């Protein structure tokens, strides 16, 4: 039997993924996290009398702390099962990816263990984040006058 015919059998028995509902859930959950972030920025500027930029940094630190804490408590992956990628796409997902890798490689020690593996998932995000920031920064500087 040719591979194509076998692929037809495989596709026939493949269940449909709930893509649309997953997307809607992720959209709402991600949106709620964005809303929380914005509320935090407003709160920080109101109570601590700091600029929006500084409040933004504080908001990011707060969200990262909460995501790491929930990962350590073993709750975050259960939340992702309910809220889908809504929890992963914001900054919380980035913190979660690093924290979960650190937890996994704790036993291998600080150098060969979590030191070497904490960027296992987040490494690509950082690399391409920095590269694209550089490229877009350059485009902006050259074509739009900085």
């Amino acid at each position: 039997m040719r591979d194509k015919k076998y692929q037809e059998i495989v596709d026939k028995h493949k269940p449909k993924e709930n893509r649309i509902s997953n997307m809607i859930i992720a959209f709402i959950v991600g949106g709620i996290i964005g809303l929380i972030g914005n509320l935090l920025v407003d709160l920080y500027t109101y109570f601590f009398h700091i600029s929006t930029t500084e409040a933004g940094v504080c908001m990011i630190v707060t969200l990262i702390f909460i995501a790491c804490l929930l990962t350590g408590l073993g709750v975050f992956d259960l939340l992702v099962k309910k809220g889908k990628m809504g929890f992963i796409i914001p900054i919380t997902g980035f913190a979660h990816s690093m924290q979960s890798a650190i937890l996994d490689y704790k036993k291998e020690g600080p150098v060969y263990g979590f030191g070497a593996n904490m960027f296992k998932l987040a490494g690509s995000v950082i690399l391409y984040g920095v590269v694209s920031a550089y490229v877009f920064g350059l485009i902006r500087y050259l074509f739009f006058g900085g």
Partner: protein
Amino acid sequence: MTNKLNNIYVKNAALVAGKLEKEGPFGKYFDKSYDSYNIDESLELSEVKLGKDAVDILLRKTKLKKDDIELLVGGDLLNQICATSYAVKNYNAPYLGVFSACATSMESIIVASSVLESSDLKTAICLTSSHNLAEEKQFRNPTEYGYTKPKTATFTSTGGAAILLTKEKTDIKVTDYTIGKIVDLNQTDPNNMGAVMAPAAADTIYNHLTSLNVTPDYYDLILTGDLGIFGREILKDYMKKKFGITLENYNDCGAMLYDMENEKEITAGGSGPVCSCLVNYGYVLDNLKKKNFKRVLFVTTGALFSPTFVFQKQNILGIAHAVSMEVVK
């Protein structure tokens, strides 16, 4: 390649399982179970403990001492089959490590039986183990990492399984075995292992049946290892279309092991080398002993999967080994 065995019998088996496996329909056949995944210091050592426990319980059940072990054959999914090697290091017995991913259990029976038949040895223990989180850590994402799994993804079973083969006559005889070939039908999705392994299983079943010149109903039950509920349907369909064989008295261990109605997390079924053993060495052997089944064909299926090779755009290879067992008076 199919071969007949003349003088190999099953003495007894021992099974250790995790919590979800215990809650499944075959929970009562397990000798021991653990509620937590953290059995020992690390996830890998927890898997070692599962294997060690299985051998210890088997020795206790068969009233053998540590020094009575003549041969140990086994393997698992961790790199360099370390879990099995560390599990057996204190038994001071000759040891052969084997690997066919989730088809390891039947490969170990084939190797052990062949050694027994061609030597003066009288007994051999076959061992295999897997641990859900240790395997997740090695093959997929960090264990605490949350992500949405596709429905076709299987769930690695947690447990250890040991079986004692002997030349002394018992009720259950190991009759024939078929060594499977590697089958590659361009499957690249690590989240759909059922599709990778189904053609390998079909090939092995077909070769086994034609070599012995029998039809599927010669066996009371044909069991594949861990194709899952979707892979099971692919196998039936493929078997019919390619070889013109309809499988009726057939099921899949991965699809049977869990209580999937209440455990929504497990969408396609169980997998891992121990998954098939938890059904085969418990429920099936018990029914063979009670003579509810007369002949059974075990076809364990393995996906020879390496993340490195998949990232290098290589296909995932499938393999299946078959062993048949029969009740003798």
